[in-house]
Every structure is written in C-alpha cells, then in structure tokens.
C-alpha cells in the first residue's frame, strides 16, 4: 500500500460563526484552528475516496465517521468534495453500518429495531442490501429440545399473557 501521508505544517483555518450578546449583537465569522492530524494527499484525484487504494466497506468505521454528522446523517458531497459514485457508496456503507449497530452513539432514540432488525447482520459488499431474493430452506421437524423456549413467558393460567403479546409483536 503506497498511501502518501503528510503532517499539517500550515494550520489551514476553518471558519465558525460567532454571536456575542449584549445590548448589541455581533455576528462574525471566526477562524478556527484545525487539529493536528495526518492527512491523505489527493494526488491526481479530486475525490478523497477515489484517492484511497481500496473500496470502502461498512466495517471502515473510522473512515465513515469523518463523513458523518453527530446524529448519524451523511454530509453532502458539496462540502466533502466527493464524486457522486463514491457518495452513493458511502451512503450505502453508512446505512449498513447503522443496521449492523456499529454506531451506538449516533443512533436516534426511536431507531427502528423491530423484528429481524434486532438480530446481528453482516455484509460482504455494499450492494448486498439490494439483493432481495427469497431463499427457501428445508426445515426439519427433528429437534433436540434442550431448553424450554421463552419459558418464563409461558405460565399456566396466562399470568404473563400480556408480556408474551408484546414480544410477539416486536
């Protein structure tokens, strides 16, 4: 891997809007110092993700985080300077990472975790989310019962009937 890394010698300043309240409100644009992080040189490409030698996957959490906001949404390509192909790929990878539960901080409180979405899932490629073929497998009646499934929910006299109703809906 011949990825060229360079450290920041010039603090290229980003600008932030500041409001000071008194009798008079002043709205200014102020420079903010950039953090001292190593940067990836773009070289021939103008798109940051095309400059990388490999394709992005949903497991590349540190890369995906740089293109996301705090609530889990993706930044527009007008800000990040990414080509539309890579932007679509990035969005797909971010969706897959959210569904796999790799961003526990950045999810909404009412994130849809109904039914099959509670269970773990993994992806090989970002186009796997579009494959919607129904696969039928042979199920066997033969089973070695080693425990009572959902045993505390099924009691004689239906004491926990309401609890079992909730879980069957979810």
């Amino acid at each position: 891997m011949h990825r060229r890394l360079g450290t920041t010698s010039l603090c290229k300043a980003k600008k932030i809007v500041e409001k000071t309240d008194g009798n008079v409100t002043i709205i200014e644009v102020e420079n903010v110092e950039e953090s001292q992080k190593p940067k990836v040189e773009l070289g021939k490409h103008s798109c940051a993700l095309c400059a990388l030698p490999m394709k992005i996957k949903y497991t590349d959490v540190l890369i995906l985080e740089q293109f996301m906001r705090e609530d889990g949404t993706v930044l527009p390509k007008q800000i990040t300077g990414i080509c539309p192909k890579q932007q679509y790929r990035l969005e797909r990878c971010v969706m897959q990472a959210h569904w796999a539960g790799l961003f526990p901080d950045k999810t909404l409180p009412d994130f849809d975790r109904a039914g099959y979405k509670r269970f773990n899932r993994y992806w090989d490629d970002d186009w796997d989310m579009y494959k919607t073929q129904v696969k039928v497998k042979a199920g066997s009646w033969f089973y070695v019962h080693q425990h009572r499934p959902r045993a505390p929910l099924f009691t004689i006299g239906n004491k926990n009937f309401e609890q079992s109703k909730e879980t069957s809906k979810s």
Partner: protein
Amino acid sequence: MATTGRFARVQQWLQFHRQWHVVDASNQDVYKLGKKVADHLSGRYKPIWHPESDVGDYCVVYNCKDVAMKGFDWKHVHYHFNKEYPRSKNEIPAYQIHEFDPCRIMFMATYSELGNNLIRRQHILRLHLFTDDNIPEIIRANIGRQMELVQEIPKKSTDFSEKDKTKFPQLFTRNENHLLDWEVPIKAPEYIRDPRIKKKK
C-alpha cells in the same frame, strides 16, 4: 509413533478420543459456523475419518441468540416444513423462528450441513446449544478446546480509543469558505402522509 510397546494402547485411546470443542457464536454467520461445527461433529476434519465409523467430537455453542446472517437473510430465508398431508405446508421466515427459539436456527444449519445420512442423528445429539453464555457446570467441566471463529467481528465506533481516532489520518480537507455550522445536525421536517392515499394490501 510407536505401534508396539506398553504405550501403544494409550496411543490408540488418544487417537480415537472424543474431544469437547467450544465456540462463541456471536456475530458469526449461521451457515458458515454450522458447516464448521458439522465437520467437527462428524469428525471430517480428522485424517482418520470414515463415513461408517463414528469419529466425531462433542461441540458446545454458546451465545446462539447473537448469531448473524448475511444482509436481509433474516427476512428472506424461509424455512419450509412439510407436514406430508395435502395442502399443508408451512413457510416460516428465519427471524420468527429465532424470536421463539434462538437455538433452532443454529440447530437446523448444523443438521443440514451434516449431510443426509443415517449417522447424523447420532452426531447431532453430541451438539449442545446455549442461548447465552450460561453453560452448566457438568458440560463446562468437559470442555477441552476452543474452536477458531469463522468471521471477524467488526469493531464499533465506541471500541476505538480517542488516541486511535486522533492517529487516524483525515481524508478530505475543508474548503476555505467552509463553515462548521454546516456540520451541525439538522432536524429533518416530519413527513406527513396524505390520508387520502391508502396502501393496498
């Protein structure tokens, strides 16, 4: 290896000894792990394997409730149960079975990977599945070896320390005219569905 002598019979016992394996099934693909567990149950990984001789081992799989499937397979994989009566078929999606009994999907995956032969019922009785990591003492005392995992578990964003995050290079440089307020999360407007449009069932 000595084939004669006093130690020969001990070596014979050691060669055909049934080992107890343990796997943690969390974040592992059901079918890949099922294939690996089936190979260990039937003894196919051993060079002394033969289909008619039972050289299989015991396997203990825990954290079965955290087992993973690829993509939307939880929704798309339907298990077909044939009741052998006319017009009585049952197709149940995998997540419904998993909600009811977390161990059943793992069981069915290993059972089908053992192959369609007379000896698989003997082998499947040597498999012990547990929903979480609560393994009884009787079984835990027997365990001798931990099996290798089938898949890498992906790292969450909270698993990385602050040090690792600062060490990681930044990919895109911000424009001169970039304002940090553009990166602040915005509350999206609520989408209100037109009540006149009704979804056809």
